[in-house]
């Protein structure tokens, strides 16, 4: 039976206005196979409320039985115009928006934005702040990977792992609350260093976490999953991405490293204190869902190793640059130094002026290459901030790499690519 316009309206959810309908039909003609219009294959709308789409993602699927023929990801439901909004704020005030881009990598977003500003205005960061940044970034990586594992494994039917992973993430969020006062939107990493020094109770908590707690929990996860026949059945050989295609499609992070390509920006273009720390880049070679799981588990172990080293060599000294042109003075100086009051007033009203220039700074976020293209025009506000977010690419990869697999496998492929839609839509 041929597909009618009305059927397509029901599927695409586009209002039955004649004009938009004509357009939507024409657009679909190039994107799905001709068989969809004769009724041989079925169009199915998955999302944006589907629980395993990890946020608000809509997939328009063309199915032949249960096999995926075409998969069209539709994003934009979480678009909040952050790039435009940042142009209307001063450099320092725009920082709070970066927390809201990738809601599982809040402090990592602070880091890349701060690095971009520091490069633009040529601001030095004291060594203590560099090491604190590494500790925070690696804790954030573990926290993000725990949420990925919780939701990914839950999608595949294992509830217990989800409960354990969220329990363990809570320890990290408690530590973030200690240092920044906030569990999620910390805005802790600022241009020139970090917001304040580590509080006394932070180091004991961190020590307990990286030595006595998390390594054993990671062992538990691997015991639960590595030899679990259901888990292996549903992940091995599913969603295979070859090394060539991963590169052609601009994939970074674990999806790329699971194909055997050794690319990690912490090694390739080191930032913060990473050059002084020793760690390995975990690799796998099959490029399937299981290998992406394996790479991320090993990344959590490496993150613990990095934190242990950083704790040992954490230097003393200032936690923030004392360049008063860009960094506000500490509160203690405001009572007795007129100069400090002037700096404070100037920085929090007008903000600092960054020179004309363009910088592109990249870091390795838990999801891959996170870049910021920052343009300064000599004024106190960024002229343009463009975010190169890894999820933007990882989402599009579903459309390329899921056809040929079963509908049930799609959920595993979505989970293994580990994107957040906030990161994708900005």
């Amino acid at each position, binding site marked *: 039976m041929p597909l009618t316009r009305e059927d397509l309206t029901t599927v695409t959810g586009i209002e039955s206005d004649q004009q938009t309908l004509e357009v939507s039909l024409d657009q679909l003609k190039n994107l799905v196979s001709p068989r969809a219009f004769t009724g041989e294959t079925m169009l199915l709308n998955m999302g944006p409320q589907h629980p395993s789409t990890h946020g608000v993602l809509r997939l328009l699927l063309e199915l032949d039985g249960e096999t995926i023929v075409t998969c069209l990801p539709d994003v934009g439901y979480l678009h909040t115009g952050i790039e435009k909004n940042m142009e209307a704020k001063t450099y320092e005030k725009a920082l709070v928006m970066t927390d809201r881009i990738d809601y599982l990598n809040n402090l990592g977003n602070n880091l890349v934005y701060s690095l971009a500003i520091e490069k633009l205005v040529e601001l030095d960061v004291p060594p203590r702040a560099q090491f604190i940044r590494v500790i925070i970034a690696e804790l954030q990586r573990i926290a993000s990977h725990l949420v990925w594992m919780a939701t990914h494994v839950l999608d595949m039917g294992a509830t217990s792992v989800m409960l354990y992973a969220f329990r363990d993430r809570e320890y990290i969020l408690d530590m973030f609350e200690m240092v920044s006062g906030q569990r999620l939107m910390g805005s802790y990493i600022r241009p020139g260093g970090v917001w304040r020094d580590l509080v006394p109770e932070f180091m004991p908590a961190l020590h307990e976490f990286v030595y006595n707690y998390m390594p054993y929990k990671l062992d538990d996860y691997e015991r639960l999953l590595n030899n679990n026949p259901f888990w292996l059945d549903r992940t091995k050989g599913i969603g295979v991405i070859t090394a060539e295609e991963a590169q052609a*499609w601009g994939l970074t992070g674990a999806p790329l490293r699971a194909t055997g390509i050794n690319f990690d920006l912490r090694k390739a273009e080191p930032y913060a204190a990473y050059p002084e720390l020793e760690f390995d880049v975990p690799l796998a070679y099959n490029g399937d869902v299981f290998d992406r799981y394996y790479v991320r588990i090993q990344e959590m172990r490496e993150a613990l190793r990095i934190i242990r080293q950083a704790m040992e060599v954490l230097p003393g000294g200032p936690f923030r640059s004392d360049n008063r042109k860009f960094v506000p003075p500490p509160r203690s100086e405001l009572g007795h130094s007129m100069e400090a009051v002037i700096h404070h007033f100037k920085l929090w009203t007008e903000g600092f002026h960054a020179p004309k220039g363009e910088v592109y700074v990249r870091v390795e976020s838990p999801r891959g290459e996170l870049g910021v293209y920052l343009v300064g025009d000599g004024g106190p506000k960024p002229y343009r901030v463009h975010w190169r977010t890894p999820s933007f690419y990882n989402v599009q990869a579903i459309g390329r790499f899921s056809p040929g697999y079963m509908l049930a496998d799609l959920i595993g492929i979505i989970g293994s690519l580990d994107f957040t839609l906030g990161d994708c839509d900005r």
Partner: protein
Amino acid sequence: MTTADKLHDLPLTETDTNRLEMPVEIDDLVSVSQVLSEWGYLAAITGLDHGDRLEVLYHICHGPDVITLRVSLDPQAPTVDSLHPVFPQAGTYERELMEMFGVEVRGTPDRSRLLLPDDWPADEYPLRKEASDD
């Protein structure tokens, strides 16, 4: 001719450590990208509104190096060719470029809205400087 030789012939200028840049004419964009596609991957396409001209920046990366191709466009009728045949992923960024800056991308496979809502006015491009409240 190897890829290294071809890269050597490009008029690249170093703007920063590991950051290279070159201006590209609209007509040369696809051929230059073809050369660079043997070397790296397309990381991002950035639109920039300078008021009197629009710029489209193509960031192509390999290891620590980023090569930025800079295309200048007339804001009245900005048009570039699609890089979809060279980089399969480019279409997504081109959709963003079309709706946010009003740049016409010739030959891109999917022309529908990516991030903006379906009822967004057709001639308003939010990331252009003129689209400000203040």
